[in-house]
């Protein structure tokens, strides 16, 4: 969707967009350009030296001056080696540093973008912008530039030398150059297009492998192995055909280049053969140049084509860098409170924990209807709000507004009596504790993860927080305790353990405001009870907003908001809502039944196990 839009609108291969980066590395790039020119010159020098040797020694029949020749040749080798060494090294380093700069800037920018960006772009898509587009841009701006200049240098240089020696013969060789240039220009684009298609089918094939493996059970029970394989086979056939088409085109390219080189060689022999009689060295120079001229011509065309391809990467990268966060702090706010990287904590007021919705309208940026209309609600400090509703009913909306992940379309959300927009996002978030339904832990140790809640917390504080949520046993049973690695995404811990650690993380900072998305994930009964007890304990003495799945939370909440199809349909205390005998009471009834039934089963199971 969004991907292809920016494709063809950038002038000059999109390079002007990368100017800040180019300026930052201008010195390195200058070194690259100068050394590549010198390197190119040295390449051209060899045939000239060879010509001298053949003319002087072989034709002249003497070895006088051989020492000098060897010296000159070694000097050329040294010149080439030194310029080549500097060139490759600087070019490589510049490419790497450019990539790193772009990645770092992209990551910094991503920390500021609002959630609507994350909702409309998949993680895989953003990941590719950060990791792969940057690499392509770096390569284009360094190696591709370098190669383009180097090959232009060799072509122009050898033509110049040839012209100086024998303009007529040179002119005859040069006839070939425009012919093949046109040929390359015509077909290079097609080749790139074919390669793109091949990559596309390739990613579809990976997708089908994924489906064939994850869907194995369904495929077997439906007995559709043959059909699924047939479809798979049609993709592998398609990629085979496309690849062969590309291979044939590449073959033609190489054959044409080879043919052009041979044609040039034949011209030299036919028209320049007589030169060999007097100056064998000159003849050999022409042969070498003529033969080696065509390859660089094709490389120049390829470089140009790569710039065109690079434009797409530049377009995608700059689209990311130019996206503006929907939720952002005004300049005045940034002035006083600082931004998310450099907060001015000295100006921060203490967060008390009063929240108020004041005539709020809200519509998701990618949604098409208002999900909140003229919604007003006061949540004084210490209130426990529960939000209930079926899966996918839109229970997170209020949480998103309170956390200022989104801003109201109309009306205000007041924190401690002032519009949330009057203070920085970081200020609000710093006073907030947040527990997600699917606990997200970062790779690192348990300590690293806990410190996420409060950097610099002491072990005592950490244990106090763990104690509060009854998570001490989780840590104690691990050999390395707090220093145990949790693995990528916390994969080395069980779901229940992750849940408890993420609780402790939120509690560590002792936030005035706690947002909690209760887990529905199936954990064993013991863990479930531990988690439930932890919730009951931690919501006391704070303002809390709980997306509730458990009866105890719902029952004891000060206010219950009932959500259906994205909208709040009922609100009030548990008793009021039950008495109203509306949607809530049905929901409650069903939840109660499910929960009681599953409790019955597990009690029964324990009994059986006890026997």
């Amino acid at each position, binding site marked *: 969707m969004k991907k292809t839009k920016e494709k063809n609108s950038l002038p000059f291969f999109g390079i002007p967009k990368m100017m800040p980066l180019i300026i930052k590395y201008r010195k390195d790039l200058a070194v690259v350009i100068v050394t590549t020119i010198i390197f190119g010159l040295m390449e051209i020098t060899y045939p000239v030296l060879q010509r001298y040797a053949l003319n002087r020694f072989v034709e002249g029949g003497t070895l006088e001056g051989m020492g000098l020749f060897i010296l000159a040749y070694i000097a050329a080798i040294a010149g080439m080696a030194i310029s080549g060494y500097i060139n490759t090294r600087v070019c490589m380093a510049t490419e790497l540093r450019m990539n790193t700069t772009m990645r770092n800037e992209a*990551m910094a920018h991503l920390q500021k973008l609002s959630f609507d960006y994350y909702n409309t772009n998949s993680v895989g898509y953003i990941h590719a912008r950060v990791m792969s587009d940057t690499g392509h841009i770096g390569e284009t701006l360094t190696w591709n530039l370098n190669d383009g200049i180097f090959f232009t240098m060799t072509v122009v240089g050898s033509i110049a030398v040839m012209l100086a020696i024998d303009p007529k013969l040179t002119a005859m060789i040069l006839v070939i150059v425009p012919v093949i240039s046109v040929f390359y220009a015509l077909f290079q684009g097609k080749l790139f297009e074919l390669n793109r298609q091949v990559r596309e089918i390739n990613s579809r094939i990976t997708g089908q492998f994924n489906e064939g493996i994850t869907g194995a059970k369904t495929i077997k029970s439906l007995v559709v192995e043959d059909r699924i394989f047939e479809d798979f086979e049609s993709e592998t056939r398609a990629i085979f055909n496309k690849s062969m088409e590309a291979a044939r085109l590449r073959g033609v390219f190489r054959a044409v280049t080879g*043919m052009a080189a041979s044609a040039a060689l034949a011209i030299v022999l036919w028209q320049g053969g007589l030169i060999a009689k007097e100056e064998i060295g000159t003849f050999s120079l022409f042969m070498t140049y003529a033969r080696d001229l065509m390859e660089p011509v094709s490389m120049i065309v390829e470089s140009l084509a790569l710039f065109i391809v690079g434009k797409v990467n530049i377009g995608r990268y700059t689209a990311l860098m130019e996206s503006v966060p929907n939720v952002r702090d005004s300049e005045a706010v940034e002035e006083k409170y600082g931004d998310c990287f450099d907060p001015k904590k000295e100006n921060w007021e203490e967060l008390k924990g009063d929240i108020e919705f004041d005539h709020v309208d809200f519509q998701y940026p990618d949604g098409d209807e208002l999900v909140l209309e003229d919604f007003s609600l006061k949540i004084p400090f210490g209130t426990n709000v529960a939000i209930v509703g079926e899966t996918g009913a839109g229970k997170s909306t209020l949480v998103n507004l309170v956390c200022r992940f989104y801003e109201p379309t109309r009306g205000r959300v007041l924190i401690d009596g002032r519009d949330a927009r009057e203070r920085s996002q970081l200020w609000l978030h710093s006073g907030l504790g947040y527990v997600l339904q699917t606990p997200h832990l970062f790779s690192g140790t348990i300590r690293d993860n806990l410190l996420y809640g409060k950097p610099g917390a002491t072990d005592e504080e950490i244990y106090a927080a763990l104690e509060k949520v009854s998570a001490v046993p989780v840590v104690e049973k691990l050999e390395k305790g707090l220093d145990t690695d949790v693995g990528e995404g916390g994969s080395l811990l069980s779901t229940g353990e992750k849940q408890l650690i993420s609780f402790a993380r939120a509690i560590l900072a002792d936030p005035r405001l706690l947002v909690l998305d209760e887990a529905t994930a199936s954990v064993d009964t013991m863990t479930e009870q531990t988690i439930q007890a932890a919730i009951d304990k931690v919501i006391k003495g704070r303002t809390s907003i709980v997306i509730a799945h458990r009866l105890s939370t719902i029952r004891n909440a000060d206010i219950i908001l009932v959500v259906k199809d994205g909208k709040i349909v009922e609100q009030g205390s548990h008793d009021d809502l039950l008495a109203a005998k509306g949607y809530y009471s049905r929901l409650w009834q069903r939840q109660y039944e499910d929960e009681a039934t599953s409790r019955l089963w597990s009690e029964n199971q324990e009994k059986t196990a006890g026997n």
Partner: protein
Amino acid sequence: MKDEKRQKRKENFRLLWTFLKGSKRWFIFGVIASSLVSLADMVSPQIIRAAIDNALGGLEPDLPGWAVALADRFGGFEYLGEHLWIMAAALALIAVIRNGAQYLVGVLNNRGAETLVKTMRDSLFSHIERLPYAWHMKNHTGDLIQRCTSDVESVRRFVSMQLSNVIRIVILIVLSIWFMVRMDLRLTLVGVSMIPVILGFTVSFGRKMHAGFEHCDEVEGQVSALVQENLTGVRVVRAFARERWERDRFIEKDNYYCGLWVEMGKTMTRFFSIQDILSALQVMLVIVFGCAFCVNGTMTSGDLIAFISYNSMLAWPIRRLGRMLIEMSKADVSLARIAYIMNEPEEPASEKALKPAMNGDIVFDHVSFAYEGSSETLHDISFDVEAGSTLGILGGTGSGKSTLMLLLDKMYLLPEGSGRITVGGTDIKDIDTEYLRSNISMVLQEPFLFSRTIADNIAISSRAITIDRVREASRAASLDESVREFSKGYDTFVGERGVTLSGGQKQRTAIARALVSPAPIMIFDDSLSAVDTETDAKIRGELEKRFGSSTTILISHRLTTLSKCDKIIVLDSGRVAEQGTPDELRTSGGIYQKIFEIQSGAAGPEEAAGEEA
């Protein structure tokens, strides 16, 4: 130990050999064509040499007899010297042959490579589809995909770029040395003296770099994982106000990664420069010695020119040869990873492959079952389902109800002596597996939808199903209305960005999939759990209407779903705790009755809440 390793290696290459079926010949033709290219490359300098020495220089030709005869047919060397275009045309003719062959090399070699990749992919895919379900449960999807993609790719590279290129380069080297030796042994020795130096240098250097590359790859993985983690954890990052920390952490790692490569770059650049110097010295030596030989009259100028051509032809291939020798070792690992999949035996076919009528009674007869490596899940289960009747199974999480159905569908095979399952009196182990499965329609709690259109998903079991039948089934599954709301209707792609089906919609799609091709045995494994109560009732009504004649098994934890079953079994920790009609069970005093009391509101939630507090 070493023998074992060699044995493994041998097996891996035997597997490669079977993959190469169908592509071998293309590679062989490719090598033949490339020999032709090399040969043509050898001949052109000879034409130029003959032009310089014999046609123009008037020297006595030391060419093979046939070449002299050929020259004589065109009027002799003297005539050719005056009509150089003939020799130029010969050069052009050789070029046409050479480049024609060059084109063939590209096409043939690619044809081989693509055929090989296709064979590997197709065999892997179809093999994976036919591996037993138990194997699928044991392996991680990500890991398997890696084997099917990157490992396939590295085997392809090994065969098409390394193996066949090595053969080509060796042919080229041998040919040019042969031609060079025929002209002048001394200068040949000078020219080739550098080859072992360059080759040895490349290989030893490559070995040294190998560990560095691996480390870089590893760190790159970490950088990439960091991005992934930051993006997926964006809510946590924001909510904990850790933007700065996240940024700094990434920058630190990323800069470390960059530094690693810059260091690697320094070493690599040194290596490239030394290689350049060695190659240039090789050329210089040939020129210097060549000139000396010419001056003292032991070599002609034409010989020297030809020599310089051969020498420059060798420079690149030798550099590449070194690199290829290093990379060849990697393919072994990839082959072993692919063999891990290919060596696994496929699902065994039933010995008797019977295809009896499937509308008979289903009988579970003293069935016990344990998953590999765990304790017994099912203990001595016996019950029967009368043909055409509806059975309800009630049980808690982990009671073994889904396992029962997996056994009936032969996803797991019942070991000898663990009881038997029969349909219409025939033991299912004797029934043809595909036949059995296609006569059992199973709808799962978390249905798997294919990334195709909704219509394709519903009609997946047969291409013959018309869109009208799809709509009809969809209406019966209460799905039609939701689908109409999508802008592309039934052509909506499942999983496309922006269009995500809710849990309930997925379940209803799966039900429509079952409705569209009714089978004699229908199983609904908790397949309406995400659908609200009213729709649940509506769909159940439709099911009853349609599957009057089918034998139906309903699994649920909600009694309303099971209320109309002819018979219910209550499964508790892998045992049948109770069985009977709903009416019987309601008053049996067992667990069913307790659940009934909870779910019918006989025990009010208020009471229970009090109990809890």
